[in-house]
């Protein structure tokens, strides 16, 4: 591990803002992957040992630098007046639908929710929680949406596999009324 590697990694992650793929990080730092991992491990333990303001997290094969959770009360204080509103109920609904069904069209989302979801989808895209990813090969070529890395970061997930399992058989299906009577 070259001596400057931790510093290089810190500065690159800082400037990137987002998570940076570890492979890409190695390329940029002109180091091999193992050295990068070693440097990251050094940073993580250094931050912890010296109670620094940062922490380094791994998301989906990428690294991201962020503030140390134990200092969050102080960080929140700076937000003060410009505190951001949480996601609306509608936005959370849309987000969960996209998370489990990605890539998915807005149409499908709206079918599931039963209401127009334009605004919620736009809002989520604005906040970087979902993004467009190609188009469905179907009439009209509707846009497909997927969740982003920001979504994972925001909800503290390492990968989409961390989402709670849904039984596959909870299905969006119209029930047979006769059948229902028996079941319930």
């Amino acid at each position, binding site marked *: 591990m070259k001596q400057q590697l931790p510093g290089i990694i810190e500065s690159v992650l*800082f400037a990137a803002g987002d998570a940076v793929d570890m492979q890409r990080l190695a390329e940029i730092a002109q180091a091999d992957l193992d050295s990068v991992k070693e440097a990251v491990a050094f940073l993580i333990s250094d931050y912890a040992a010296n109670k620094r303001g940062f922490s380094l997290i791994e998301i989906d094969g990428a690294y991201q630098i962020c503030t140390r959770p134990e200092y969050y009360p102080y960080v929140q204080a700076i937000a003060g007046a410009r*505190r951001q509103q949480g996601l609306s109920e509608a936005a959370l609904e849309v987000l969960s639908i996209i998370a*489990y069904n990605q890539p998915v069209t807005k149409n499908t989302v709206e079918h599931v929710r039963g209401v127009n979801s334009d605004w919620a989808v736009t809002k989520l895209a604005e906040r970087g929680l979902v993004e467009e990813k190609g188009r469905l090969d179907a009439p009209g070529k509707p846009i497909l949406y997927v969740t982003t890395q920001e979504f994972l970061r925001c909800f503290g997930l390492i990968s989409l596999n961390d989402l709670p399992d849904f039984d596959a058989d909870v299905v969006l299906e119209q029930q047979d009324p006769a059948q229902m009577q028996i*079941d319930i």
Partner: protein
Amino acid sequence: MDKLSFRLDVYEGPLDLLMQLISKNKVNIIDIPIASITDQYFEALALMKGLDLEISSEFLVMASELLYIKSRMLLPKVKDDDEQEDPRADLVRRLLAYQRYKSVSQFLKEREFSSRFMYFKLPDNIEPQFIPYTGAYSLHDLMKAFEDILERSARCAPPPRKTFEGIVRREKVSVREKVHTVSEMIRRRGKVRFGELFDKCCGRPEMIATFLALLELVKLHRILVDYDKAENSFVLIHAKSGDNSDEAAVAWNY
């Protein structure tokens, strides 16, 4: 005096042109040889004109000012009149001030890229603090929340069957199954918002089954219900101390 060559495109204005003439002639700014500088000024304008460069009105205003000063300089001086100011005084003041700002420009130019090698960061999105609500809630509120969702789903046009071809495995929804689904979801996530339980439901039967399952789980103390004021929503919390017997134990009722 030598014919001067001008850097035609770099005059920031008439003061700049004058400063360049003064500097080329190596004369003292507070003692400008007005006649010769005025001649050179006009030469420069002629050259600019010859090259089809646009001469803004400020250059012409200065030209007339120079001619005025020149003419006043030619007037006989009244001896012993201390009140009489040098006709060049105002121009000299302006040139000195301009020269100072010019030197500051130079200072700034040298530092212009001071922060070029530094990258800054956009502010983080800082989420407001989550304040758990511990106040009282009633079953009625819970029922009301469910009714809202049912009402909304009534407006939901059923998706065409075709959309789901290939993924449909079952057409029935049982409460027993829902008890399992709901309890698993809450157990795995620790906390689930009320509305989320119904995200995947389509049609009243499935919703009702989900809701009944929820009531059953509450009755068994498998989950706790709280109200998150910030989110304006019920939240369902996994109860660690709850009865963890098999779902079958509760589903037989149905």
